[in-house]
C-alpha cells in the first residue's frame, strides 16, 4: 500500500503543477477569447519574435522590423506589442519556446534564424508566421521553391552574395589565390554558405581553405589554423556560431597579417577591410513589409519568399592602407569607401 501512496504523491504533484500551468493559460480559454476581441475598437496587433541566439545579425533583424513598423506610423503598445523570446542557442529551450508560443494565439509570429523556423513549422498553429535571417529556406524544408512553399509561413531569405564577394576580392587583391573561412558544421546554413562560397571562388580560380568549429571556444584555433595555411584573405561567412564571436577571427586574421572580408554590416566597425553584406537590418525591414501584408489580410501561403532587397558594398581605406592594398580605379563608382 505504501507504494500506492508514494505514486499518489507524485501524481498529486503532477496535477498541481499542471493546474498552475492551466491557470496561467486561462486567457486562451475559448470562453474568454471572444470578449477580448470585441472590447477594443482599435486593434492592437499581438506579435512576438523568437531568436535562436543573440547575434548582431538577429539584433539587426529585430531592429529592422521595429523600424519598418515605426516608419508606417505604428507605435509599440499602442498599435502593436512585440514580445521577444531568445533560446540562447539551446534546441530544447527553443522547442519549449516554440511550444509555448504556438499554444497561444498571436496576430503574428516572427521567426528569426533557421532552427527557429524549423521548430515553429512543425507545431500546429493558426497564427501566421513570417521569418527572417534564414539563409536558405528551401534547405530548411520550408518548401519546393520560393513561390511554392508551406502554407502559413513566408519570409525573407538572407543568402549572402558570394559572387559579389569573390568579385570584390579579385579586384582588390588580384594576386590572392587562396581565401579562408571558419564555418560551423553543426549549422545547415553555415555548410550551405561554405559550399556556395567555394563554388563561387572556384569559378575565379580561387581556392577556399576552411576550418570547422563546433563551439565558440574552438573558433580561435580554427582561425589560427587558417592563417597558418597561407591564405591571402579571410572571407568570413556569416552563421550563428561565428556571428556571435567574430572578433576572435578578426584578431587571428590581424595577427597573421591577413585582411578580412565580411558578409555582415556590423563587421565594418570591427576591423573588416571590406564587406559585401546582405543588410540584416534590411532583412528585418523587408520582413516588416511582409508582416504588414499579412496583417492586412493576405495569407502567408500566397506571399512568395524573397531575398533581402539590399546589398551593401563597403571598403575601409584605413585598413586597405594598413595591408598596402591598392584600390583600383573605378572601384568607388559602385562601392562605398569609408575610413
Amino acid at each position, binding site marked *: 500500500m505504501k*507504494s500506492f501512496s*508514494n*505514486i499518489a*504523491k*507524485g*501524481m498529486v*504533484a*503532477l496535477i498541481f*503543477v*499542471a493546474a*498552475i*500551468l*492551466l491557470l*496561467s*493559460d486561462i486567457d*486562451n*480559454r*475559448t*470562453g474568454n477569447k471572444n470578449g477580448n476581441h470585441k472590447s477594443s475598437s482599435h486593434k492592437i496587433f499581438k506579435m512576438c519574435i523568437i531568436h535562436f541566439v543573440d547575434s548582431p545579425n538577429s539584433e539587426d533583424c529585430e531592429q529592422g522590423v521595429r523600424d519598418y513598423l515605426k516608419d508606417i506610423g505604428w507605435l509599440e503598445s499602442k498599435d502593436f506589442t512585440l*514580445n521577444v*523570446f*531568445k*533560446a*540562447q*542557442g*539551446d*534546441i*530544447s*529551450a527553443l*522547442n*519549449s*519556446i516554440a*511550444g*509555448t508560443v*504556438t*499554444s*497561444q494565439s498571436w496576430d503574428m509570429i516572427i521567426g528569426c534564424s*533557421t*532552427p527557429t523556423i*524549423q*521548430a515553429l*513549422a*512543425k*507545431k*500546429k498553429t493558426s497564427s501566421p508566421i513570417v521569418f527572417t535571417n534564414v539563409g536558405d529556406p528551401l534547405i*530548411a*524544408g520550408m518548401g519546393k521553391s520560393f513561390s511554392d512553399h*508551406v502554407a502559413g509561413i513566408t519570409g525573407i531569405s538572407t543568402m549572402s552574395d558570394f559572387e559579389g564577394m569573390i568579385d570584390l576580392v579579385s579586384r582588390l587583391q588580384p594576386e590572392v589565390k587562396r581565401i579562408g573561412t571558419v564555418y*560551423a*558544421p*553543426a*549549422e*545547415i546554413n*553555415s*555548410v550551405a554558405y561554405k559550399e556556395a562560397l567555394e563554388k563561387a571562388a572556384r569559378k575565379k580560380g580561387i581556392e577556399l581553405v576552411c576550418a570547422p568549429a*563546433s563551439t565558440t571556444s574552438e573558433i580561435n584555433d580554427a582561425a589560427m589554423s587558417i592563417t597558418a595555411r597561407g591564405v591571402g584573405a579571410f572571407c568570413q561567412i556569416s552563421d550563428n556560431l561565428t556571428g556571435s564571436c567574430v572578433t576572435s577571427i578578426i584578431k587571428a586574421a590581424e595577427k597573421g597579417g591577413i585582411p578580412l572580408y565580411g558578409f555582415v554590416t556590423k563587421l565594418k566597425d570591427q576591423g573588416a577591410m571590406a564587406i559585401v553584406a546582405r543588410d540584416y537590418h534590411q532583412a528585418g525591414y523587408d520582413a516588416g513589409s511582409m508582416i504588414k501584408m499579412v496583417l492586412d489580410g493576405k495569407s502567408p501561403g500566397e506571399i512568395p519568399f524573397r531575398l533581402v532587397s539590399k546589398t551593401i558594398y563597403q571598403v575601409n581605406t584605413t585598413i586597405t592602407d594598413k595591408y598596402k592594398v591598392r584600390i583600383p580605379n573605378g572601384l568607388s563608382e559602385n562601392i562605398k569607401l569609408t575610413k
Partner: protein
Amino acid sequence: MTLLLGSITIGLILAMLALGIFISFRIFDFPDITAEGSFTFGAAISAALIIAGVNPLLATLTSFIGGAMAGTVTGILHTRFKINSLLSGILVMTALYSVNLHTMGRSNLPLLSETTIFTWFDKLAVKLSGEGKLTMVLGWEVPAKDLWTLFFCLILIVLVSLLLWWFFRTRLGTAMRATGDNAQMIRALGVNTKMMIIAGVALSNGFIAVAGSLLAQYQGFADVQMGIGMLVWGLASVIIGEALISENSLGLVITGAVIGSVLFRLLVAIALRWGMNPIDLKLITALFVLLALILPGFMKNTKKIRLTSK
C-alpha cells in the same frame, strides 16, 4: 491547454531518456556522458533512414541498436582499457559528434513532409475522431489529434516501463542490479561484472537513442546540436522522481523517473509561460534540480523532528 498537452507529450518522450540515464547512473552507478552523443545519434539514424524511405518503426528500432553500440564502446573503453568512466563517456560523446554529422550528411535534416511514427499517430487519430475535430477539455478547445498523440505516447512509455521492470527482475537483470550495488559480492557468485557493465551501458544508451529518435520525429527535424544539455535534463528528471516517490523499490523508481520527466517539462513550461526572461531559463532549470535535491532531505528532517517531539 495546447501548451500543457505539448509539454506532457515531450515529457513522456523524454521519459525514455530519463529511463536510460536511470539505468547507467542509478543501477550501475556509472556516470555516463555518452548520453549527449547517443541522443543525437538516435535522432540522426532514424532521420536519415526515414528520409531514405525506411519504415519509421524500423528506423526507431535501428536507432536503439545504434545507441546500444555507442554504449558498448563506452563500456569496453571503461572495463577493458581501464579508462575512467567519465573520460570514456567523454571520448565516445566527442567522437559521436563527427559520426552524427556523417550519418546525417549535414547538420540538420528536416522531416516535415516525411512519414514518421507521429504521422501514423495523427492518421490513427483522424480515423478515431475525425479530421480537424476540436474537443473541449475543461473549457479549452483542443485538437483531438493532440489528445490522441499524448495518449499514444503514454501507452508507449507505460509499455516500455513495464518491459524494463520485467527485465530487471529476470536473472540477468538481477545480476545487473547487483553489479551496481555490490560488485565484489556478485563477482564472488561467478558473474562477469565487466560484461554486465558493458551490457548495462549499452541498454542505457539504446533507450537514450530511442528518446532522441522520437523527439526528432515529434519536432520534425534532427539537428546535430539537439543532444546538448540532455544529460542534465534526464538526470534532473530521475532526481526529481526519486525525491518525490522513492529510491527503494525498482517499480517505484521507474515510475518516478517517468513522472519526474513530465513534471520537469511542466515546470519549464510554467517558467516560460509566465514570461520569465529566457536568459534566466538555465538558472531556473538549475534551481529546480537544486530544489529536488535538497527538498527530500529537508522533508525527512522535519518528519524526524515531528516524531521526536511526540
